[in-house]
Each structure stands twice: as C-alpha cells, then as structure tokens.
C-alpha cells in the first residue's frame, strides 16, 4: 500500500503479521461491521507529499493578516507579547511535547516537575495557596470556578460583573445550563450589593476595559454573606498590582496565554485556576504533588486524584481529562526566563504606553478615554463612530479591539485599545493619526 507515509509496514511485514494472526486479510477481522457500512468513502482528497502540503499551507496562511504586520491594539484575554527565544526551544522539546499525561511517574519526572513548578510559580504570582495544572482556557476556568463555588456553598446563584471578558461570561452562561444555575450580571460596582444568596461574586480586575477594581470590598461582601469571591485576573497585571490572594479572592482564574504562548487564533491557550488550601478538594483539574521514590529521592506524582473523573466518574469535580499541560510548561519556562524583572518591565511598558497613548488621544476632539477610573494597560476609546471606528481604522491597516457595544451590556460603545511591550512609538503615532482622520471625517464628530 504505502499510502500513509508514517507507516513502517512493508507489504512483506503485513503478510507476515497476517500470517501470524492466522488470517489472509484485515477484512477477516471486521466481521462485526454492518455490511452496508463497510469501506465508506470519506471524501478526503488524495494524499500529498510533505513538500506539497507545506506549500499548500503556506498559501492558506498567507491569506491572514498577522498581528506583527502593522499597528496592533487588540488584546484583552489574549495578548500579543514578547516571547523569549528560549521559550519554544525548551517547552516544545519532543520529550515534553510528545509525552502523554504522566501516568507512569518513574519515566515522566520531566513533565511532573515542570508542572509542579508551574503550580508553584503561579501560586507565587497570584499569592494563592494552590494552582492546578491547567484548565482548557480562561473562559472554562471561569465557568468551572462558578461550578466549584456552587459545590462548596450549595447555592445556585452566581453573580458576575458585566465587565468580565465577554467570552468568559458567555461560556459561564453555557456551563450554567447544565446544573441550571441562576446567573446574574451586574456592573462591577454593584457586585457587592448583590452578594446575598450568591455562591460567588465574579469580578475581573483589571476589567475588560483595563479599569482597576476594588476587589477587597467585593470579597468582603461575598464572605459576609457566606459566598466566595472569584477573581478573574491576567498574568502580567499581577507583577504590578496587588495579587488576588492578597485581595481576599477565594478562587482565582484567568487566561494564561500571555505567558509565552502564541496567539494562534485563540487556542490552544491556558486556563489558570487557583484557590485557597481549604477548597482544594473541590478544585477541578489535575494537581501534581511532591513525594519520594523508594530510594528516598524526591519525585513528583499526580495527586488528589479522587477528585477526578477517571476515579470518581459522575461524582468527580469536573469531566476534564486532557488539559493544556504543554501550555503550563510553556508558562513556566516563560516565567523562569523573565523572572520578576522582565515580567515587571513587560507589564510596565504596557501601562506606560497605554497612558501615553490615552493622553494623546484624549486631546483629539470628540474622543473619550475610559471611565475616569484608573486603568492598567488597556482602555475604552469612545468616539462618535462607536464600534464602527474599528472598520475605519482597519482601512488604515490598524487593528483595534472588539466593538464594546456588541459584546458588553451597559458599557457604552467604542473599541478597546490594548498596549503591551511590543507596542511601538510608530504604532502610537499611526493610531493617533488615524483616529484623528476617522473622527474628522465623521459627520457627528465634525459637528
């Protein structure tokens, strides 16, 4: 045959194998298959050589406008950040990338130690007692946090801020359909007032528009009413802002992609989830723990597995099995390379650029920035064009964040502008010029 280029079997191999099995054709093994279902046509085009498939994919990829190809101000949960050269070299080594879940710890210490270190690094960054070894992405981490709070409190009401990333809120809404939770969405500033009877209050800080939020007050309100505080965070902000563990959050979740993981059109990314020690037995996801081998050498194993589906089945804390381990390892490599210094610098540059940009934009007629509250490295940019500003800027080759009105209730309209350490002076100039032109062209703005 020789149709699968990765198959080692020559026809002679196949003949020898068939003979050993005592049959003359693989068909002899397929008696159980209904006759009319056998040998289906699948409609897949004929195979290609590697060289052909490479050219084919290069052509498709060339149809996309890459983030690096021009001024770029999209951000939010997924951020274009500098990835040190050593990150992929180390994290994507075949020994990590092509290993399975470390079911056999004696031959999986590379994975296990790397993930245990990930748990440790994130715990330090978030000032949380414990962080699991990953969830699918930030959105499912938020949803699972709500389910965890529901299990812990026995309550079925979840109050979430409008200013949580829209993808996260929408995923939460979907997950809530299973256990039929009541999801209440309110502005951040009203979270505390809605604590009564809530399994948790879900607050994002900095929020979707970069605004800094007083998490402490919200956590206190949650605790007073017997509920939990779930904080949605983003990694770099923690380098400069008081971390969730210090603000009173009980569960912390977020999207870990900014920690050295490529944009990749939204995945695979990294769901971060951590909690206080006391809550860990209700946490979903794998957790690695330290132990020793029979010689007394330190080693690591998957632990607290009685929370998991392969042991507890329908009683498990979640159905998650395959997770995002290599992304967690990537995040570890990223954090160990960046260290506190470069991590802070990356966060700071984003903040500094965002503020420099905002103050330039604020000088333009009919432009409003944010809400007046302090913000981090992104802000809402409001003009008479509303979300349509996006289209106007695209014509100038500038990409900005999603239209606010389309994705957020009660937050007005406009676009979100994200800065990171990769935002350049030239990018700022381009955006300011383009916004000036776009608003000047617009009838309302001109009037």
């Amino acid at each position, binding site marked *: 045959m020789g149709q*699968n280029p*990765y*198959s080692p*079997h020559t026809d002679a191999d196949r003949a020898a194998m068939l003979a050993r099995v005592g049959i003359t054709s693989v068909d002899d*093994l397929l008696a159980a298959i*209904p006759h009319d*279902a056998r040998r289906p046509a699948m409609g897949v085009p004929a195979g290609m050589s590697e060289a052909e*498939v*490479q050219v084919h994919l*290069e052509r*498709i*990829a060339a149809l*996309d406008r890459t983030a690096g190809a021009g001024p770029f101000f999209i951000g939010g949960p997924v951020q274009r950040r500098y990835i040190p050269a*050593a990150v992929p070299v*180390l994290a994507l080594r075949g*020994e990590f990338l092509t290993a399975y879940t470390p079911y*056999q710890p*004696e031959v999986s210490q590379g*994975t296990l130690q790397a993930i245990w270190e990930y748990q440790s*690094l994130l715990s*330090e*960054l978030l000032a949380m007692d*414990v962080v699991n070894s990953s969830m699918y*992405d930030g959105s*499912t981490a938020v949803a699972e946090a709500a*389910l965890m709070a529901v299990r812990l409190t026995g309550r079925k009401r979840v109050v979430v801020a409008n200013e949580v990333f829209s993808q996260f809120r*929408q*995923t939460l809404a*979907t997950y809530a359909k299973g256990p039929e939770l009541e999801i209440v969405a309110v502005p951040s500033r009203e979270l505390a007032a809605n604590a009564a009877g809530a399994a948790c209050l879900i607050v994002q800080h900095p929020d979707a528009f970069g605004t800094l939020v007083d998490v402490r007050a919200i956590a206190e309100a949650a605790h007073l009413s017997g509920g939990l505080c779930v904080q949605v965070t983003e990694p770099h902000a923690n380098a*400069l*802002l008081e971390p969730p563990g210090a603000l009173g959050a009980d569960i912390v979740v977020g999207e870990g992609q900014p920690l050295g993981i*490529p944009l*990749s*059109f*939204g*995945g695979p*990314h990294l769901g971060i989830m951590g909690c206080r020690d006391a809550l860990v037995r209700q946490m979903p996801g794998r957790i*690695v*723990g330290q132990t020793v081998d*029979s*010689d007394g050498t*330190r*080693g690591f*194993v998957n632990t607290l597995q009685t929370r998991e589906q*392969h*042991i507890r*089945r*329908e*009683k498990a804390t979640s*159905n*998650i099995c*395959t*997770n995002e381990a290599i992304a967690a390892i990537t995040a570890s490599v990223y954090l160990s390379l*960046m*260290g506190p210094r470069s991590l802070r610098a*990356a966060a*700071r*540059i984003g903040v500094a650029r965002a*503020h420099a940009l905002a103050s330039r934009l604020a000088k333009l007629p009919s432009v409003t920035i944010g809400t007046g509250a302090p913000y981090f490295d992104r802000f809402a940019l409001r003009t008479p064009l509303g979300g349509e500003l996006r*289209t106007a800027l695209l014509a100038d080759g500038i990409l900005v964040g999603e239209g606010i009105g389309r994705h957020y209730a009660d937050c007005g309209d406009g676009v979100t502008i994200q800065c990171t350490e990769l935002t350049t002076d030239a990018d700022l100039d381009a955006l300011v010029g383009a916004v000036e032109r776009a608003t000047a062209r617009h009838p309302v703005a001109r009037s």
Partner: protein
Amino acid sequence: MSRIRFETGTKTELPALEPLLFELQQPGRSGRHVRGGDEADALIPAAFRRTAPLPLPELTEPQVVRHYTHLAQLNYSVDAGMYPLGSCTMKYNPKINDRAASLPGFADIHPHQPDETVQGALRLVHELQELLAGISGMDEVTLQPAAGAHAEFTAILMFKAYHAARGDAKRRRVIVPDSAHGTNPASAAMCGFDVTTVKSDARGNVDLDALTAALGDDVVGFMLTNPNTLGLFEERVREVCDAVHRAGGLVYGDGANLNALLGVARPGDLGFDCVHINVHKTFSTPHGAGGPGAGPLCVKKPLAPFLPVPRVIRDGSGTYRRETMAEHPNSIGRVRSYVGNFGVLVRAYTYIRTLGEEGLVETGRDAILAANYLLALVREGYDVAYERSPMHEFVLTAAKQKRHGANALDIAKALIDEGFHPPTVYFPLVVPEALMIEPTETEPKETLDAFADALLRIAKRIETDPQSVHDAPVKAPLRRLDEVAAARKPVLRYRPA
C-alpha cells in the same frame, strides 16, 4: 532518559534528580528579556500596587536552559520510544504538523481580528469541518471543544437543548456502559443529569437486555464508545442505537477509538447521532504531556441548530465568517473562547491532507492489524479479557500473574526496565488487573516483536520469581514513587523551608 546528573552545584532540600527552579535561583540574578517602562509605577494608584512580595525565581537564561534540558531528558515520549497506552493512540506526531501550526499566518493572528483579516484561518477551519464530516459520516461539525471530554459536555448539553426544544423536559438520565471512560459519566453529571450504568455482556458488548431495561422516557441519551474501551467493535451497534432512539433518546459516540474506524466504518453510518474526535489521538497531534488536544464534535442535522457558537461558515461569495447567537438562536452558546484549539486543528488538518483518503484507510487497517498481531504474540503468556478479535487495541488481564503474586502495575514497571513505556493499566474497570495495549500503526514490526518478547519474558519471570518484578523499575530515572504519601500530606507547591 537518565540517572546521570549534570552537576550544577545547587543544594537541594532532598536528594533529587534535578534541583527546583526555586533552589537554582539566587536573588539578584536575571536575564534581560524585556526592560523599561519605569514610568508606569507612578501611573498606578498606590492603593492598587502590589505590596505582596513577588518571589519568582531569579535565574539566568543558561540556568533555565539547563534545567529544562535536564527535565526533558527524564521523560519517556513518543519521540523516544513505543508508548502503547491503550485508549490514547500514541502514534507518531509528524513534525510537519508542528511547523504548519507555527507559520506566522496561523500562529500570529488574534482571535479578535475581524473576519476579513483571517480568511486563511477561517478557510482552514471550514475545510477541516468538512473533512471531519466526511470522515465521521456526520452532517455538521464544531471544532470548538478543547478535548474529548469537552465535546462530551458540549453534546450532552446539546441533547438537553434538543429535548427542550421539543418541549420534552422530563429527561434527566444519561446511560453509559460499565466499560465507559470516566469522562462520559462525568460529562453527563456536569450537564445536570443522573447517570445509569449498564453492564457489558460476555462478549464485551453492551448488554442489550440491560440497556433495554434501563431505557425509558426519562432518558436523555446513551453514550457509547465504538470500538469500545475493550478494543472491541460493538457487534449489535445498530440494534443498540435503534433501542435508544425508540425510547426517544439520542446516541452519543465517544470517538476516542476512531483510529480503528478510519476507512473501516463511519459512526454516522452506524446509528450514532453525533461523535467526537480526539484529534490528539486519531489525527496525530502531540499530547503535550497531558494536553492540549482538540475534540471536534460531528453531529447529524437534527442536532445542528444547537451547536455552539461561533460557527464558521462559508457564504455564497466564498467568504468565511464567524456566526454568533444572532444567527443561531438555538445554539447552546459558547463552550469556550473562540473557534477552538486552532494550533492543534492546523496540525490535524495537515495530517489529514498529508495522508489523504487512501492513507487514512491504510491507517485504520494497519492499526487493527498491529493490535491483532501483537495479541497473537503475547496471548501465550497472558489471559485475554474477551476472546474476540480486537480492533486497534486489546485488553489483557494479569489475573493469572496475580495468582503468582505480581499484578498489572508490577508488569507495567517491569516493562520500563525493558525499555518500553507501559500500557494503560487498571482501565477499563470491568477487567480485573487490566493491561490495555494499543500499539498504533506507526510501530515497526520488529518493535512489536520486541515488546511482545519483553511481555513474555516478564510473564516467565513472574512464574519463577514473582518478587523480582516488585523491585521494578530499576533502570528508570526514579524507582517507584510513594503516591500514598503524596495524597496524604499534599505538597502542591514550593514553599521555602
């Protein structure tokens, strides 16, 4: 893999193969990957500033490179050897797939970019949807789920929506066979449903009588893996599906074992209403030490309105678009951010296009042949759980060995000393002392022979000297680990001594 230390001079709290990042670090050390932005501090109001210490390790790049080089060498991986984990399809992961996923046009695009700037990515997504529909025999596909379990959850929620849309609110039970993977009942539970387990019959099929007895008008659906986790094709699959359908339920196909069906039979032709695909199994994307995967969900028409959003469609003019709730009001909504684990999907697409129709056909048949061949070789030493020709994997039981005082775990560890990764053990739960072996189609015959020899050697050793395998492994980086201690007093992160 290695027990040889590269000496760094770092003190470790306990004897260790490799120091922790936290042991290697020293305050004041650092690289210079990013710098600047000092003006930012003044821009953040004092009340918000971090006062907690930020005790991340301070290391130079050379230290980090060595650390992960050492750690990597402690792992067994498909890149290094045969990895016959049953149910996991640890086939070779082609490097071209990784290169495709890292093309800037795929790796450096943001999910919030407008559709017109990501036509390549959307085209790939759309083409993959169509390819998977053809491969599975289904009508429509969502690529959103991040893994198999995620797809199960998505589908069962869609079942819920489907019944609700028909005004049928009384259905609260999902049925699973006793051989089902743990994610099946767990997913059903996450959708708020009760789980009923039905037993397998003597041939390893679903016990049709038990199933019929369990069915009723409160049943949401039935979750079936085919070939099942015993590696056996469900002999009365159509009858099973018909029974469920007659009761008004839907049949979920757990496609973890789709590798065996490639070009052999399509779930969509067998009676399933939907099936998920673990592309990290069947379509050769790397398991990444636990993830990511991707779990495309392929469904028949009646379920299509409930598929999650965004949905990627191609309009009449050949333009690709992401459609949302506005266009799909019956959708269950988003099950995650964005269109899926795109980087993984690019790999799967690359693999499918590389193999083509004929390559996929060959794959299914080679996978089945390899499993049957290996079984033929090892059966003289081990009892087989079910005496039937398996598909792409088979389950042995170490019951015989157990009587000599060695169990499945001992056999697994002894295999490590023979230079192999062990198979899946103690799953499926219906087989005592299970050894679940899936060679895949990418292991050469001589490797299968050597694996069989190793298994048989171990069986012999157990007959004559069962104690000897209790000590295994002795050639791995570590000896057996104390999992009980790990769970009893969990140490889940570094804390300075």
